[in-house]
Every structure is written in structure tokens, then in C-alpha cells.
């Protein structure tokens, strides 16, 4: 039995490096969701420890399940070499901050059980943490509501959903003002100063971990690179086709669970390809499927990875054969590229909005007298058309008068109480930053859109 020289690197060191790379991310989580809200005085001292508590509970739940398994089967050394805490740890990291403890425990246990069903460490086909995640999505879908994602401080300062949920609500593919501005700028996405699952927000730390893990040969470096690259190229093309700038693909690769999923979940050694060509194909497929999920309305990094997990064996077979003859993999590459190109075009066309015109907006009349322009317009509100007359003088709205509406009276009263119509005139140059009236969101939003549509018509661009 040989050879008689062995490399110094071993599984234990690999797993240790993985933990080291997670450490900055965990510290970031604690600072962002624990320490900072505490300093701003929005949570109590005890609540500050909630995020770290979640992580520990998740990891422990998994460890306990596997310990019981080892005890029952009397596998003495199993737990020493099975790194049993990882499924629960990773699961907690991709869950919202306010996930109830009992759901974390159940999810982590399901995650570990999914690993044990296949025979334990080294034998599972599906990423355990993601199986736990899928379980929670299916059984406890209400965990993933906006409020659960936000820490107390974010709740007070950002009045929107998480970036991707927000992106799924805009018309077309959205604009910089709609997608990025509500959260500050793209640098906030990079640093992680945006709402989202625990570990998923800081793209920068994920990239740092990727570099560290690749240099130390801990993870399969090709998978994250091709995965994120594919999402970037596809969203870049979609954005380009619809006239959006470079911010658009950046928004996509920096938001949601993509970075964290690509670096930590897609590269899980046991459930990913071993051959180089297999790894590249895996990354391509992951990218394409994630884009499909995102453009059909949901965030799908987790599901993409699970779907591709099932294909790993086949991809490796292609990878194995193409090591002897690279030509044998070409047809698969071409196939995936064709699908990617086709999807890009389909998604771009389906999101096309004709000249960005709001279909709910209608100009009834438009008269120019001297330096005044008088608009008679209508905008769809909560109960029907809101009609209004707007007078623009010297490029400024000087009067806004609601001529008729069908909104419920109490809601409309709220709008009047807030003096919202005057606020619209005062803030006409800065409408995006004007908050809507709470409890009368639709009505106030319709009024806001009405004003902005008139301005758009008056001064295109």
C-alpha cells in the first residue's frame, strides 16, 4: 500500500479553513444586526445576541442529530470526522434574522437527516443546508416576509422590501432609481449594508472568502467564478437590450443569496463536480437557472443549487470523458449557451415597456398658453380614475387640483390631512424621496405617479 509520502493538507485543515473564511461574515452579522441596532438604541442589550444565538442553535441542532445517529449505529469515530455542525450553521446563515427558534431547530434537523439518509458524511447527493431551507420554504413560508429580514434599525430607516422582492414589483426591469436608490448606492450592496438573509448581504466578504479559499485550494474555484459570471453576462445583456447601464448586472450579482450561495453552497465538495469541465458546466447551469428563477419572480439561488446537485453525476461523466477528448464536451457547452442566449432575449422582450409609458396614466387635454401649460390628466387609483388639472408655469408645477376621484373617503381624507397634494408640489423635483401616506399607500402613490408622469410628458428625460 503506497505511496509513502502524503501531502500535509487534510480534511480537517480544509474544514478549518472553511470556518475561518466564515468568521468575518459571522462578525459582520453580529455587528450589523446586533451591535449597531443596540447602539442606535432600537434593541435591548439581550436582543443584541440574537443573531449569534441563532447561529449557535442551528449548528448545535445538526450536531445533536448526527450524534444521536452515531450513538444508535455505534459508530464511535463517526462524529469526529463528520463535521456535523455545518448543515445547521449554513442553514441559519441563509435564513432571515427573525426566523423563530423552533423553525431553525427543525430546519437544521431536517438538513442533517437529509445527509444521514444517504449514509452520512461524504455520501449525500443534495446540499443538506439547502434541503433544510427548501423544507422551511415549503412548510413555513411565512418566515420569509419582509419584516423578518429587517433588523430593527433597518425597519425604521428603509421602508421597502429586500432588494430582489422590490425588484420583482417594479414595472419592466426597473431603473436605477427604483432598484438601487432606495438602499443608497451600489456600494451598500457590496459592503452588505442592505436588508437580506443573515450572511447573504455582504458581497465583499463573500468575495474575500472566495479569494482566500481559492488560493488555499479549499474550494473548487471554477464553480463560483462561472456561476456569478454567467449571471453577470446574462443580466448585462438583458439590461443592455433594455437600455440600462452597468449598474443592472452589478445589482443582480450583488443582491440576494448569489455570492454566498456561489462561494459556500455551490462549492460544497460532496455535492459538486470533481472534474474541471464538470465544474464549469455546473457553474453555467447554475447561472442560467438562477436567472430563470429571478426573472420569473422568485430568488432561486438555493433551488438552482439543489436542482444542479441532482445533475452532478451526469456532469461529471461528461467531464470525465472530455478529459480524454475535450471535443466531446463542446456540444454541451453550445447547448447551454444557446439556452442562455435564447432566455436572455425572451426575458428582455417580456420586460419591455413601451417608452416607459405608464398604462394607468392618460392625458385628457394639454393646452399651452404663453408660459403656462395646462394638463388635464387621469391616473388609476384605488377605486378608479383620479382626474386632475395641473398647471405648469416656467417649467414648474404651480397648481395641482383633483377634479374627481373614486377613492374611499376615509383614505382620501388621510391624504388631505397630510397635506399630501402640497407636499407633491413642494417636492416635485425630488419625488422619489417623498414617502407615501401610510394606510393610504395606493392613493398617495397614484397621485405621486400622476405628478411624475405629467413631468415626464412635459420634459422627456
Amino acid at each position, binding site marked *: 500500500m503506497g505511496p509513502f509520502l502524503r501531502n500535509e493538507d487534510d480534511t480537517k485543515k480544509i474544514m478549518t479553513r472553511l470556518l475561518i473564511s466564515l468568521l468575518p461574515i459571522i462578525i459582520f452579522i453580529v455587528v450589523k444586526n446586533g451591535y449597531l441596532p443596540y447602539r442606535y438604541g432600537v434593541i435591548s442589550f439581550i436582543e443584541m445576541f440574537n443573531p449569534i444565538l441563532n447561529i449557535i442553535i442551528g449548528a448545535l441542532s445538526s450536531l445533536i442529530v448526527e450524534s444521536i445517529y452515531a450513538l444508535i449505529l455505534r459508530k464511535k469515530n463517526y462524529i469526529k470526522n463528520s463535521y456535523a455542525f455545518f448543515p445547521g450553521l449554513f442553514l441559519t446563515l441563509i435564513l432571515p434574522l427573525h426566523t423563530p427558534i423552533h423553525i431553525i431547530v427543525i430546519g437544521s434537523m431536517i438538513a442533517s437527516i437529509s445527509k444521514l439518509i444517504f449514509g*452520512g458524511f461524504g455520501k449525500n447527493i443534495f446540499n443538506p443546508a439547502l434541503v433544510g431551507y427548501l423544507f422551511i420554504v415549503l412548510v413555513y413560508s411565512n418566515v420569509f416576509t419582509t419584516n423578518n429580514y429587517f433588523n430593527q434599525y433597518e425597519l425604521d430607516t428603509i421602508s421597502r422590501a429586500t432588494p430582489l422582492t422590490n425588484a420583482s414589483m417594479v414595472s419592466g426591469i426597473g431603473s436605477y432609481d427604483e432598484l438601487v436608490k432606495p438602499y443608497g448606492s451600489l456600494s451598500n450592496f457590496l459592503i452588505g449594508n442592505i436588508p437580506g438573509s443573515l450572511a447573504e448581504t455582504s458581497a465583499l466578504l463573500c468575495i474575500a472568502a472566495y479569494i482566500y479559499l481559492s488560493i488555499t485550494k479549499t474550494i473548487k474555484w471554477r464553480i463560483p467564478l462561472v456561476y456569478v459570471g454567467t449571471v453577470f453576462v446574462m443580466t448585462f445583456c438583458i439590461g443592455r437590450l433594455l437600455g440600462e447601464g452597468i449598474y443592472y448586472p452589478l445589482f443582480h450579482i450583488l443582491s440576494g443569496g448569489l455570492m454566498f450561495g456561489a462561494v459556500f453552497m455551490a462549492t460544497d465538495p460532496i455535492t459538486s463536480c470533481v472534474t474541471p469541465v464538470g465544474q464549469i458546466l455546473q457553474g453555467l447551469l447554475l447561472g442560467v437557472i438562477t436567472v430563470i428563477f429571478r426573472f420569473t419572480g422568485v430568488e432561486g439561488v438555493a433551488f438552482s443549487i439543489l436542482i444542479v446537485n441532482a445533475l452532478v453525476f451526469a456532469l461529471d461523466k461528461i467531464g470525465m470523458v472530455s*478529459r480524454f477528448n475535450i471535443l466531446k464536451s463542446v456540444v454541451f457547452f453550445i447547448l447551454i449557451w444557446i439556452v442562455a442566449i435564447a432566455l436572455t432575449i425572451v426575458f428582455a422582450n417580456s420586460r419591455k415597456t413601451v417608452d416607459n409609458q405608464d398604462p394607468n396614466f392618460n392625458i385628457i387635454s394639454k393646452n399651452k398658453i404663453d408660459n403656462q401649460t395646462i394638463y388635464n390628466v387621469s391616473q388609476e387609483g384605488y377605486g378608479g380614475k383620479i382626474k386632475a388639472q395641473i398647471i405648469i408655469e416656467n417649467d414648474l408645477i404651480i397648481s395641482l387640483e383633483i377634479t374627481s376621484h373614486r377613492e374611499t373617503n376615509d383614505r382620501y381624507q388621510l391624504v388631505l390631512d397630510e397635506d399630501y397634494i402640497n407636499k407633491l408640489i413642494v417636492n416635485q423635483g425630488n419625488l422619489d424621496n417623498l414617502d407615501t401616506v401610510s394606510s393610504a399607500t395606493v392613493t398617495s402613490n397614484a397621485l405621486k405617479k400622476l405628478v411624475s408622469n405629467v413631468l415626464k410628458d412635459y420634459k422627456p428625460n
Partner: protein
Amino acid sequence: MKVKIAKHKLTNDELIVYNKPKKVYIPLISGNDTNITILVKKGEYVYKGSMIGKRKGDFRIPIHSSVSGTVLDFEEKTCYNGEKIKCVVIENDFKEKIEQKINIKKTISKYSKEEFLELLKENGIVGMGGAGFPTYVKYEAKNIDTLIVNAVECEPYITADCTLAKAKCEEILETIDAILEINKMKEAIIAIKKENVELKQVFDNFIGTYLKIKIKLVSNIYPMGWEKRLVKEITGKDYSNYPSDVGIIVNNISTIYAIYEALKYNKPLIERIVTFSGEGLEKPYNVLVKIGTPVDEILNQLKVKENSIIVSGGPMMGNRVDELVISSNLNCVLALNENANDVTACIECGKCVSVCPVKLSPVLIMKTKYKKERDIKKIKAYHPEKCIGCGLCSYICPAKLYVRERVKEAKKIVRGDK
């Protein structure tokens, strides 16, 4: 992924001689072929250099006695590949009697190509790096123009070729030059590892007058000594079967010196230099030994520690053995401390795939079960027969699995040995 394996500190260029074995066990194997015609009988007296066997089939390479004495018996002994091989047991009478030889020319470059081939064949010259391929067959190929002299010795511990080259540098250069002239070849390239500065200096001192011989430094990665990689590194050429397909012959230093002795003295291949090293020895040595010498005699002389395990070959490609006799293609014997690595579950990190020099996917071969007949077809798709046994897959494995052994098993099955 390219792998560098640190050069081992346990080296020593000191050359000692061990030529007094009481008995020799000449293995009846040539290359991997044990199909040998036996030419001696029990009780027969043989001279040193007498032919005692001859390979059947295409390559009629003879096997010679390394001592003079009486044939005692035929016995099975473990050989370099860890397998039991039938050996001719000869009792040494220490007289070193030699059969009268004729046809020796004083200048070794004066032979015709036919004489050259005949001398190589009759003296049983084979590749001494491991495969044991008959050397004359290499030179029979047409349109050969380049000779690559493999002085790489990429496995740690092994310094047999290096020691020989330092001791016999002039003879080796003279032989290379003669080979070029006899075979009308264009040039010879001596391949030396970058880190082996000493050896390069030795050659640099003598190479001045040989205009057709060049020295090329190759990178320190393992397995650089593997023919295919060496040819690629030096000439950039790929070939499918033999280097002669692209006009190249590769010989290592020991083989070149064996050719020298064949041309100069008509001396058959009956002794070689073997590296003895490892933590189990007080001091490492390179030993000039007779083919057929039992290794434990030498190890005892070198004061091997008790409980050491004996490895036939280098640390990467070698096999653990209980006993061993010296054969012409054995370049190293190691006495190592037994240290059992904890074998853990495969995490499918894919490292064995990325290091494999013949582009196998060892982890996938390991995962494939092949108990039934139809599974053999499945495993064939993975081409385990391409394995060169370099051991990198096991070396790199973070779970410390015996990957190489599993690939070897598959290789045997595909080849139909089992």
C-alpha cells in the same frame, strides 16, 4: 494542477559496493513479462555473465547470472512490483569467473549500427528506470534524431542516477556521443532538474568538447521523470505510444552507463546502483549491487532499525514488501517508520482529478463498483489502464485514502489480469 514534492533531506552521494552475496536469486522477469525460457538446470555451473534465461515472444532479451557458481534451485521471491516471481538460485563461489568474450573494440563509437543493436540485445540492456523495456528495440525504430538522457529522478529520496552521473560523468558523455554517431542522430539533451545544481555543474565541467550534447533544466514538478511529460517539456511534442513516434529516444543515466559497459567490455547487465534510504536506516547510501542480491542482506549491513517497513521503489510509486531481491529496474529501497494515517471519508474535493498526469478521474473510478461482469464495461469508460502509478492521487488526498491502489485494482480488471 502542478505538484512540487519537496526534495528529501535523506540523501547521500557516497557510493558503496556490496558484491559478496552468498546466494543470488535472479528473477526470471523481463519488463512485466515472466514468460522466460530457462536455460540452466539444477546443479549446473554458471559463469558470471552466463545466459541463464531468455524472454520468449518478440523481444528475445537474455537474462544473465551475476555471479559464478552452482545453480541450487528455483524459488519464488518478491520482486520490485511486490509480486512473487520465479528466481534462479545460484550459490556464489566468489571466483567471479567470466566466459571468454570476443569482438571488443577499443573505441566505442567504431561499431556499426547492427553490431550496436546486437551488443545491446545480447547483454540484456533494458530500461533501468522502472518499466524495463528492452533498449535495443528503441534503437531499432526508424527516423530517430534526438536522444533525451533522463537525469531527472523526480521521486524524493532517489539519487542513484545522480550518484552514478557524478562518478562516471566522462564515460556517460562518451557513450552519449558514441550513440549519436552510431545511430546518426542529430543531438542529445541531458535533462536535469532545476534544483539539482550540483549535477549540472558536474556535466558543465566535461561537456565542452561534445558539441551535439546539450543540457536542459526542467522544472521541479512531479512526475517530471515520466517519459511523456519529459518529452513534452523539452521538445513540446506529444506522442501516443512511444517517443520514437516523434523521432525521440529516452534513456536514463543508469541505462546509458549499462550501454557503456556493453560496448566497452561486452559486459551484460548484471549489476546496478540502488539508493537505500529512509528513516529506518542510520545513514542513506547508494549501493552498487549484483542483480539477484536479497535486499535484507544489504539492509542488515546498513543497520536497519527494527520494525521498519521495507518499500520497493521510491516513496511515490513504490510498494510495501516483506522481502525483496534486486532486479535491473529497481532503483530504490526504502526502510521507513510505519505511520498509519487516519483514513476518513472521501469528500469529493476533486484534487486527485486535478493532479492526475494522465487525466484520469480517480475519485470516479473509486466510486464505481465493479463486481459483476457488466460493470467491467462501465469501468472501461474511465480508462484506468492509462494509470502510470505515479501515486499523486493518494499523495494529494486530504482524506488519506489509498486512491492509487483502487485505480490499480481497476487497471488490473480492465487488463483482464484478475
